[in-house]
């Protein structure tokens, strides 16, 4: 039963990783940029939300609305102001740009909020304290179910959006061939900026859930980036459903590792990540699904 519990907790953790990673996957799928600032942007979203909650005492779930809008704008501006230019200089420059951006965000957060850890758990209401005990070793937390449901909804919603909406189709067309997308009337710059906005908003959503579930600190970005990156690579770069699968595998690997020894949690995740790269460098779903 303890292992059943570990797998179950892993699935919930994996839902969080999938939520954290889908924006990374989207930016890579559409723009071919590996956004090394993704983790830091998630943490930035958490801090913006924490700051508003601190000032207004509103529920973090309510404050999510303005902070996701702000973070969409941040992503949009980031693409227009920074990434668009660096993309023209080849593939290495965007990588360096986002790396530098991550450092800037981390240090700004450190300067503004001090190195203390913060949590939104206390303000999130009953959802953080409610849980159902199935047996002695197995309990289901309401927050875990909520995170998993949000992750599936966001990834499913994104997938539907890409397949069924005008903007979504324009995004896929631009991802596959931006030059030709322009030739059928698609404003590829606008599409890129909106894709970046959506990606950064989902990162912020994950960051807020991190702060509700546990704590965030200004230096948390790089660790979150690594988890997101591993989830994306395990599932196959550029495939959203792959990212969900990758997140779940990573989450379960970590909780099973922790079952053996609490210190093995991250190690087990890294090992699964390395094993997937060694066996299938394209990721698990890579061959089955196309770009975005």
């Amino acid at each position, binding site marked *: 039963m303890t292992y059943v519990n570990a797998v179950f907790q892993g699935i919930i953790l994996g839902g969080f990783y999938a939520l954290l990673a889908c924006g990374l996957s989207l930016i890579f799928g559409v723009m071919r940029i590996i956004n090394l600032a993704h983790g830091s942007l998630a943490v930035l979203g958490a801090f913006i939300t924490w700051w508003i909650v601190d000032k207004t005492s509103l529920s973090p779930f309510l404050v999510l609305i303005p902070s996701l809008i702000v973070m969409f704008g941040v992503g949009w501006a980031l693409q227009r102001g920074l990434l668009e230019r660096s993309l023209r200089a080849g593939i290495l420059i965007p990588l360096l740009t986002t790396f530098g951006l991550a450092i800037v965000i981390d240090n700004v957060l450190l300067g503004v909020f001090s190195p203390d850890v913060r949590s939104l758990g206390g303000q999130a209401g009953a959802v953080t304290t409610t849980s159902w005990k199935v047996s002695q070793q197995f309990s289901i937390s309401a927050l875990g179910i909520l995170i998993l449901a949000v992750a599936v909804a966001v990834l499913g919603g994104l997938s539907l959006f890409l397949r069924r909406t*005008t903007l979504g*189709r*324009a995004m*896929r*067309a631009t991802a*596959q*061939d931006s*030059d*030709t*997308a*322009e*030739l*059928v*009337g*698609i*404003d*590829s710059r606008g599409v890129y900026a909106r894709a970046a906005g959506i990606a950064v908003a989902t990162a912020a959503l994950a960051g807020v859930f991190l702060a509700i579930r546990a704590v965030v600190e200004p230096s948390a970005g790089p660790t979150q980036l690594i988890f997101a990156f591993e989830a994306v690579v395990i599932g196959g770069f550029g495939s959203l459903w792959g990212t969900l699968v990758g997140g779940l595998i990573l989450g379960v690997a970590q909780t099973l590792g922790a079952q053996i020894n609490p210190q093995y949690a991250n190690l087990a995740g890294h090992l699964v990540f390395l094993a997937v790269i060694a066996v299938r460098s394209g990721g698990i779903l890579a061959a089955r699904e*196309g*770009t975005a």
Partner: protein
Amino acid sequence: MSLLSVENLDVRHGLLKAVRDVSFEVGEGEILALVGANGAGKTTLMRAIAGAHRPASGRVVFEGADVTAMPAHRRVRAGLALVPEGRRLFPDMTVEENLIVAGANGRRGGAWKVDTVLEAFPILKPLRFKRAATLSGGEQQACAIGRALMTNPRLLLLDEVSLGLSPIAVEGVYRSLHTLIDGGATIVLVEQDLARARKVAQRIICMLEGRMVLEGPADRLTSREITEAYFGLGRVQPKGAPA
């Protein structure tokens, strides 16, 4: 007033001057064929007209408005559509999605819908939900032309629609094009097959090393004149340029 006018256009690839001082006009309802050897600059010229490649100097005027600085997607919305060389379908999208995405982003208020395109290119009907990458060359070309039509163009630019197609597929594509032409479409097309270019077009422009070396009505130019201009055999001086 002509629909399109290209004025003293110079287009470069880095230091290479691919199009040099090209000027011509296209009137409403006209079919113009652009011929020339490999590397003559036809594709570069078409892409510059469509906005996919910024010219170094000169102007592109469409419906009386200077569109030289306009990005490609806005030219499409104004009614200028290019069927690019090599077809360039969105490979992971279905035939229908390729059409829909163009329809949703192109010029508003035209007759072309998915159904009318499928009517005009019946070979696409059974392929509607197939991924574009799985289509044969001829099917892809039909889809590429259909995709351009979905943007409801006032001027259609076709870059080598017969490239890499079987003779039967070429016939099929041109049969559909003739339906368009009979409907009064305005078309600039690049065609390597001189005989076909003369048959389909009212006017022919021949390019050599980036310059226009011959221009005239298709029924008055002899095939010998065109061939000589095509290979640059020196009989014809570049139009408007001192020797």
